């Protein structure tokens, strides 16, 4: 890769108080690329996404987005630079309706109601079940619908890079298939760059072209999706398969 990637992370280290969970992580995501971050529980995947979204402040290392060093700026600014997190466990605004949740996604946008309406129509077209329930309180949706609402809310922020954390968590396989299909469609239609975190290797690599494998906070392997899937060592050692 000769040209500057969309996102470049160098030597990222993150600690919760005394406990360090990321040790010198390097990774890159190119324009329009879908990249997976996989690994077992406690490997540091969610921590990585939170650091990228500004929800955690790194102890060391650099985060470069579109050629600009954005290390350590707060979460509210991350959205404005185009990095949008769809958090683990959805974290919807339970007391707000589906529609209000989606509009909260557009909270930081400056490009006018016309563009926001267009994106809203697009989100409702992607997730038809949400269109039917736009007035319903988000806390009363099923798990799958909540995940759709969370992805929709993320899309409403008009991301340049979408961070998807544990898309499949706690959902039935049928729903996961549906979500994988929609994420693939989002990528195809908008050419959106996506960095996704998954415990389920098959789900992750069904969407991503490339992957990184994390183990206890260190990068241990990276490569094309099919290479990683075929790698017996990866499957056995890091993913318990």
């Amino acid at each position, binding site marked *: 890769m000769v040209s500057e990637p969309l996102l470049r992370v160098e030597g990222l280290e993150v600690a919760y108080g005394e406990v360090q969970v990321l040790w010198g992580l390097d990774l890159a995501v190119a324009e329009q690329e879908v990249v997976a971050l996989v690994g077992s529980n406690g490997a540091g995947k969610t921590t990585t996404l939170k650091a990228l*979204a*500004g*929800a955690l402040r790194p102890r060391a290392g650099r985060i470069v987005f579109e050629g600009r060093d954005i290390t350590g700026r*707060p*979460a*509210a600014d*991350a*959205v*404005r630079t185009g990095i*949008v*997190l769809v*958090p683990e466990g959805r*974290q*919807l*605004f*339970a*007391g*707000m309706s589906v529609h*209000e949740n989606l*509009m*909260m*996604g557009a*909270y*930081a946008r400056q490009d006018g109601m016309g563009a926001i309406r267009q994106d809203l129509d697009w989100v409702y077209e992607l997730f038809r079940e949400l269109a039917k329930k736009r007035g319903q309180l988000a806390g009363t949706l099923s798990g799958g619908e909540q995940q759709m609402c969370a992805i929709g*809310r993320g899309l409403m*922020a008009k991301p340049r890079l979408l961070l998807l954390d544990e898309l499949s968590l706690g959902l039935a396989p049928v729903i996961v298939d549906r979500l994988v299909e929609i994420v693939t469609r989002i990528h195809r239609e908008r050419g959106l760059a996506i960095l996704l975190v998954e415990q389920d290797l098959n789900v992750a690599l069904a969407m991503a072209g490339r992957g990184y494998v994390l183990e206890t906070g260190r990068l241990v392997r990276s490569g094309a999706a099919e290479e990683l899937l075929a790698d017996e060592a990866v499957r056995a050692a890091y993913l318990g398969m």
Partner: protein
Amino acid sequence: MNGSSMGRRGAGLILGAVVLAALVLPPFYLSGYWVRVITGLLMYGALASAINIMVGLAGYPALGNIVFFGTGAYTVAVLMVKADTPFFLALAVAGVVAAVYAALLGAAVLRLRGAYFSIATIGINHATSELVTNLDGLTGGGRGTIVPFFPGSIEAERMFFYFLMLALMLLATGTVYLISRNRLGYGLRAIKADEQAASVMGVNTTRYKVLAWTISAGLTGLVGGAYAYWLAFLEPPYVFDIVMSVKVYIMAILGGAGTVIGPVVGAFFLELLSELIWGRFLEAHMLVLGIVVVLVVLFVPRGFVDLAGRLARALAGGSASRRAEGVRSDG
């Protein structure tokens, strides 16, 4: 649809006129005792609306919010006693002082959440009360201080404080209305629902929380300043009274935290109850307050406004299903 929305607007106008008349007319007809009682209701309505900005909109249990009441009260007292400041100027300064105090504290304390934030506000209230008590030369300390009396007849005084508290209540409630309908209000609701999600959606949570607390404190400080002039005698335990703070908090919850009118309804209800019934239970009124709190939490956790809404929907739903049955039996 046009007809019904116009009908609704007409009904709204009539309701508004009735409410306005009900608020403006009492001091012209009622006895001095009742005017004083209602002035107290209006004051608690203002305080409950002010705390609602933190508790209802932002979801931060500012249990010690009474600190800004005391701060406002003492600002007015000190300015009027020591500097011969005219009342309205002193009142304006009281609002500003309380707001600035909250802004300075907020940067540190609003990092805490839930019960921790609550405890911190109670601590701040105690510390401020101690400070005022020990600044003897300025505040009169533990002996208290006498604020200049209202220069006019008893009737004029009664009118003055009635309409002053009414104006402050309308200001506080109007502020809640405006906030809940603009960008700040949406940001605060998001913070209340999930602070981390709000921040990753682009809400500058620290700035919004500090702003909300500053506004809440400014309003509370204004009411405290008005109270100082009304009461004409101040002592730290009167105006930094945590029991009063808890009462205001309960009023907001009881009426409906986060709604515009709920806290005012809760304030009127609880104060009127206290005036009518607790006057006869002087020994046990804290017991009654405690029982009311337990009953509220058990039976109307979302407040009167929500309860009224649910009842209205249930009644409307009931009559609609009866109509539907009627149609079926006719067919």
